[in-house]
C-alpha cells in the first residue's frame, strides 16, 4: 500500500506547478515514506521540497527540512559507507549556506558551525572547496570584509567540480565581488555575457539585474540622477521576468525602491499590487528592502497627512473609507525596517542595514 500511495503522490506532484501547493504534496510524500521507512522516497521528497522552497516559495522552509534530510543521509552513510544521494544532499546544503546572510536568526557562530560541517563533508566526500569558499564570501561580504575577500580569492583558486555552481552563477558571484569593491566598470564588462543573455541559467541574469539595480538605486539615493535611466531598465527587466522566473521576486523590494525614487505614481500602483509580498514573505532582507521602499514612497507625500487609496480588506491596515493616514502606513513599515536592520546589524556586528535605511529614509 505504501509504495502505491507514494507513486500516486509523485504522479500528483507532476501536475502541480512548483511552489507552495507542490510542496504540500511533497510533504505528504515524505510523511508517507517516513511511515513505511522507504529511504529513497524519504530523501527524494525532501530534496524536491527544498528545491521548490528555495526557488519558488519560502526559503525559510529549507532550514526546517534540512536537519532531517542530513540525519537521514548520515544514518545511511554510517551503515553502508556510501550514499547515492550524497551529491544531491550536498547541493541542498549549499542553499542552506547561500541564504544564511538573509536570516538574522542564523548567528555568525551558527554559520561557522554550518560551514565547518560543510567543509568537512567536502573533504570527506572528495569535493573541491570552491563552493565552500564561494558561500563564505557571500556571507561575510556584509560582516567581515577581510574574511570575505580571502574567501573570494580562494574560491577563484579552487577547481570547479560537480558541486560547483554553473558558470553563469559563478560569474554572478564575480559581479557581486566587483560591485562590493566598487569596480562598476569591470563588473559591467564581466557581466556582459550575462546581461546579453549569452550565459544564462535558472537564476541568471535575473539575480544579476537585481544586483545592478541595488547598486544603481544606492547611487540615485546618493543624488546621482545620471543613472536613473539605467536603474529603470534593470528594474523593468526584473519586473518583466517575475511571472516567468520566480527568483526575480527576491528583488521586488528593490523594484519598489526604484519606483519610489524615480516614479512614485507607478510605485503606488506597484505597492497596491504587491503589498502581499511583504506580508507573506519570511526572508528578512527581502522584506527589509520592500519596507524601505514603502517608507520612501510615502515620504514623497509629506505634504499630505491622509491619502486615499483602495486596499483590499485583508490588508493589515485596511480602512473601510479607503482613507489612510500616511504616518500610520509609514509607521507600520518603519517599525519593521528598523527592527530588521537592528537584528541584521547585530548579527553582522556592523551598521550596514541601518545605513541603508538612513540612506533612503532619512535623506
Amino acid at each position: 500500500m505504501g509504495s502505491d500511495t507514494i507513486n500516486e503522490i509523485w504522479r500528483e506532484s507532476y501536475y502541480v506547478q512548483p511552489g507552495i501547493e507542490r510542496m504540500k504534496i511533497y510533504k505528504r510524500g515524505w510523511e508517507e515514506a517516513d511511515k513505511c521507512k522507504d529511504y529513497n522516497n524519504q530523501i527524494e521528497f525532501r530534496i524536491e521540497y527544498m528545491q521548490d522552497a528555495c526557488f519558488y516559495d519560502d526559503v525559510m522552509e529549507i532550514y526546517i527540512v534540512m536537519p532531517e534530510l542530513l540525519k537521514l543521509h548520515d544514518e545511511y552513510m554510517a551503515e553502508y559507507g556510501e550514499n547515492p544521494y550524497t551529491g544531491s544532499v550536498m547541493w541542498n546544503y549549499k542553499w542552506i549556506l547561500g541564504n544564511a546572510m538573509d536570516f538574522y536568526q542564523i548567528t555568525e557562530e551558527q554559520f561557522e558551525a554550518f560551514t565547518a560541517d560543510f567543509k568537512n563533508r567536502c573533504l570527506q566526500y572528495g569535493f573541491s572547496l570552491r563552493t565552500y569558499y564561494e558561500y563564505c564570501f557571500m556571507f561575510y561580504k556584509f560582516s567581515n570584509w577581510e574574511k570575505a575577500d580571502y574567501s573570494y580569492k580562494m574560491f577563484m583558486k579552487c577547481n570547479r567540480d560537480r558541486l560547483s555552481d554553473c558558470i553563469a552563477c559563478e560569474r554572478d558571484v564575480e559581479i557581486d565581488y566587483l560591485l562590493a569593491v566598487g569596480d562598476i566598470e569591470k563588473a559591467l564588462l564581466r557581466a556582459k555575457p550575462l546581461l546579453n543573455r549569452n550565459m544564462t541559467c535558472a537564476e541568471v541574469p535575473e539575480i544579476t539585474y537585481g544586483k545592478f539595480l541595488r547598486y544603481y538605486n544606492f547611487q540615485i539615493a546618493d543624488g546621482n540622477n545620471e543613472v536613473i535611466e539605467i536603474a529603470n531598465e534593470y528594474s523593468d527587466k526584473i519586473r518583466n521576468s517575475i511571472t516567468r522566473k520566480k527568483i526575480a521576486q527576491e528583488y521586488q523590494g528593490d523594484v519598489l525602491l526604484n519606483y519610489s525614487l524615480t516614479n512614485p505614481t507607478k510605485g503606488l500602483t506597484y505597492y497596491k499590487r504587491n503589498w502581499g509580498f511583504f506580508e507573506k514573505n519570511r526572508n528578512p532582507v527581502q522584506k527589509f528592502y520592500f519596507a524601505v521602499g514603502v517608507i520612501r514612497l510615502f515620504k514623497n507625500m509629506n505634504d499630505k497627512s491622509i491619502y486615499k487609496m483602495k486596499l483590499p480588506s485583508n490588508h493589515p491596515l485596511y480602512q473601510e473609507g479607503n482613507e489612510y493616514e500616511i504616518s500610520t502606513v509609514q509607521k507600520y513599515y518603519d517599525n519593521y525596517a528598523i527592527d530588521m536592520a537592528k537584528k541584521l546589524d547585530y548579527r553582522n556586528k556592523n551598521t550596514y542595514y541601518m545605513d541603508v535605511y538612513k540612506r533612503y529614509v532619512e535623506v
Partner: protein
Amino acid sequence: MEEFRFKVNLGGMIEILSDHLYSSPDVYIRELLQNGVDAIVGREKVDEEYKQKQQGKLSLKLDEQKSLSFRDNGVGLTKEEIHRFLAIIGESSKRDIESGKILSDYIGRFGIGMLSCFMVADNICIRTRSVSSNVSYEWIGKPDGTYTLVELQQEIPVGTEIYLEAKNGCEEYFKKDKVEELLMHYGFILPYPILLDDGVDKKRANPTNLPWEGNSINKQELLMFGQIMFQTQFMDCIVLHSEEGQLDGVAYILPYSVQPSTKQNHLIYLKNMLLTEKGQNILPDWAVFTKCIINARELRPTASRESFYEDETLELARNEIGKCIADYLKELAQHDKITFQQFLDVHSLVVKSIAIEDDELYQIFIEYLEFVTTRGVMTGRDLCYSNEPLLYCGMDEYRQLSQMFFAQGKLLINAGYVYSRDLLLKMQDLFDVEVLPVDFSEVEDLLKDVSLEEAEDAVDLLEVAETILKPFACDVEIKQYIPANLPAFFYQNEDAKLLNEIKRVQEKGDNLFWNLLNNFADEIEEKADAVLYFNMRNPIVKKMITTDNRKMLEDIIIILYVQTLLIGGFPLRNNELGMMNDRLLSIMERNLL
C-alpha cells in the same frame, strides 16, 4: 616582448565538434545544405537574372556507401576566398568584409560547418568556380590541417561541388536511405530544389510548396502534414506568424493532456533549414499542449546550431507566437464552444495557466474555469456574481473547515488545486469582487457563543481538557455550531503548524540545527494559536459535561482530540494514534470488568 601564436590541433577540434558540439554525424548533410543555400543567396545578390528566374538549385549525386558529391550553382569561391574561408577555422564567407558582421540572410555564421564533414570523410575535396571569374579550383583539405589548392584546367559551371569519400566505419552515412532521409529531414522546407541522383533514379527530394504558405490554407492538409512529421493525429492546428524573427509555421494541438512542466520538442527551421528537432525555447512556457513546426528567418542560432540565443528578438517572437495561439483559443471560446469544451476536456490545466498570464483571455475563459467550493463545483462566472467575499484556503484547511462551512451554508473555495489560487486572486484584479484567504475571524463567526449557564456547566470539562491537552500546546473552548454531529473542532493557525513542525524536527533532526530552530521557534511561539472547540450542540459533549467519571472524561477528550487532528489532516507528532488506542483500550477494559 616576444609574441607567440596558438596552434590548433584540427584532429582534436573535430573530436570536440563531434563529441560535444554536434549531436550526431548526421549534421554533415545539414552543413552541406546550409553552405549550398548560402552560396545561392550569395549569387542572388549579384546576379539579378539568376534571382528572377529562380535558378538556384542543389544536387547530390551518390555512389552508395562509398562517396557523394554535393553541388550548388551558387556564388562559388575565388582563389582568395578559398584561402580565406576554407583555410581559416571560424572565418565565415557570410561575414561582411567591411563590418565583420554576419549578414542576416545567410544561414551559416561561424565558419566551422565544413569541419563537420570530417566526421564522415577523411578528406574534403571542393571544386569551385566563382561567379566573378572564369578560373576553377580544386581544394583538398585533410583533418591534420593541411590542404592543397590547384587550378583546374577544365572550366566547371559556376558554383561549388563538394566531394566526400566515406571513411572507414562511416559507410552508413552514405547509404541511399540514410542520405534521402537526411535530405528530407534537414531540407524539407528549403525554398530551392534538392535533386538526388543515386545512379539509378533522379528525383526531387523536397516538396515545392509549404502547407502553411499561400493564400488559401487547407486545414486538412496541414493536419495531414503534421501527422507525417510527428506521427500523431492532432486535435487541431494553428497557423503561426511573427514579424519578430521573421517567423512562420504551424502549431499542432496534442490530442492528450500533458503536464504543465513538460518541455515539448518542436521542429525548428532556420531560413528553411532544419535547425533542431528538439527546439524548446521558442514557445511560451504555457504552450505545452502544442507541437510546432517553425521556420525563423531572423533569429540568432547558437554555435551548435541546435537552439537560439535568448535575446530580445527571441523574446518578442515568443510573445507573438503566444499571441497567435491565444487568439486561436479566444476565437474558439467565443465562437465554437463545442470544440473549445473538447479542448478543455484534454487541456484544462493549460487553459488555467494561460488565463493567469493573459487578462483578456481570463475574461473569456472565466465561464469555463471551475472551482471546488462548499456549494459544489462553481464556475468563475458563478463566483463573480455571488455578491459576497470569496473566501479561499488550501487543501489541508479545506479538509478541516469545509464540513462546517457547508453545514452553515457558507461559501469556501478550495484553492489547493493547481492554479486555483492565482486564478481567484486575478478575479479580484479584473472584477469587482473581494477575494480573501480564510482567516481565523471567519472561522470564529461560525462558532457561536454558548449561554452563560451553559458556559458555567462546561467549566469542569474545560479544566480537565486544558490540563490533559497542555503538553500539546492546545487551548480549549466551548462553543455551539453546526453541524451538531461534530463534537469538536480543532483549529491551528499557520504559526502553530510551523511551530509544531519545528518541534518535530528538533526531536528527530540533526543537532547542528538545534539552535537555529530554537531561534525560529522563539519568534513564532507568541503568534502560534491552537484551540480545540467543543460543540455544545453535540450529545457526546453534553454527556461529557454531566459525567462525573474523571477517568472516562480524560479518555474521551484525548480520543476527540486525536480524531479532530485526523479529520483535519494534521500531522501527528507525539504518538497521538498510540495514545488514542490506549484510551480506547482503557474504556473497553473498564466496561468489561
